């Protein structure tokens, strides 16, 4: 399937996937931190690998990323990405403990962020699964705090064997409460063979 030749309807369908997933994720995050959490309208982009890194702030920028491999009928990779400040704000909000820092040696801080990611990404994926009727089983969360380029290429390994660009469904959630910095960025990178299954499930299979 040539992703550069998607119809508008197919792109809209993918955006709707992002919409439903992020909506559910925002609700779940909102329960977790007991604040109102909003979402931006998701975007669907076909980007070169270099462009993808630029979207997250450049290949060298340090991010906190939780990676979930999705198994099931439409495999792929989901990232839940924060800046260090955003991740620390989330940890503080959940634990009510201002002293916690995001440090790989701080087991409490790390497990808080992993568990929050697990809950929110679980909500994202279950909404996708319900909407498409496709089973999506997330793996356990894998955490890394490192350069965006190093982290994101992991999600490109499958697609890079068939193409030089990736389709990403990008959705942001953030707290509307001004002082709070709670934000997160979902990137869903379906494996190349998953698109036909997603389109079939959404009823937009024609002419690609």
């Amino acid at each position: 399937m040539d992703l550069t030749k998607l119809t508008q309807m197919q792109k809209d369908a993918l955006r709707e996937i992002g919409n439903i997933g992020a909506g559910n994720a925002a609700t779940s995050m909102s329960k977790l931190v007991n604040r109102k959490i909003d979402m931006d309208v998701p975007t669907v982009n076909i980007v070169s690998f270099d462009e993808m890194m630029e979207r997250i702030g450049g290949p060298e920028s340090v991010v906190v990323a939780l990676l979930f491999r999705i198994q099931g009928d439409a495999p792929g990779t989901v990232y839940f990405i924060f800046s260090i400040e955003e991740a620390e704000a989330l940890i503080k909000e959940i634990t009510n403990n201002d002293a916690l820092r995001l440090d790989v040696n701080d087991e409490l801080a790390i497990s808080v962020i992993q568990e929050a990611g697990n809950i929110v990404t679980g909500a994202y994926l279950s909404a996708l699964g319900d909407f498409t009727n496709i089973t999506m089983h997330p793996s356990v969360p894998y955490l890394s705090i490192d350069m965006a380029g190093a982290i994101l290429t992991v999600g490109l390994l499958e697609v890079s064997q068939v193409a030089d660009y990736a389709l990403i469904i990008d959705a942001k959630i953030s707290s509307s409460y001004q002082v709070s910095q709670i934000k997160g960025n979902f990137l869903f990178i379906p494996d190349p063979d998953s698109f036909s299954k997603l389109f079939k499930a959404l009823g937009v299979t024609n002419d690609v």
Partner: protein
Amino acid sequence: MSKLMSSSHVVKVGIADLKVTKAPNTIRTSGLGSCVGVVIYDERKKVAGLAHVLLPDSKLARQNNFNHYKYADTAIPLLVEQLSSLGARSNLLKAKVAGGAQMFQFSSGSDMMRIGPRNVESVLEKLKQLSIPVLASDTGGNAGRTIEFDLQTSLLKVRTVNKGETFI
């Protein structure tokens, strides 16, 4: 972005990309994870090139017109070719290699997830085939790397988030 010498500039290499240059320039690639940065140079002629290899073997390609810079086995010969046309002597080439980390500690050991070590193996094998000695390397581990090769000194600067800068 400070520039010490106004006459030199930093040549930037993207993912699955390859470039060659001459002194006084430096050549750099950012955010290597499982990817491997292969620097090949002619020390005396001060000519060097850098390939940012994403995958080990072009046999993995499932597309017809694939980007040859993406795979270790196809990128390295092209790098040598471009260096020769820039004046490097092919029998005096040397290499420095960095990258090939495993960014996430996956529990299930699928082959694709071991891609870092496989990239390194493939790069080293290709360099051996072409009789290019590897003078220094910094591979494996689980940290991302940014590397920059200085053609004047033939030193490769390796930067990681936690350990800062080292020169190899």
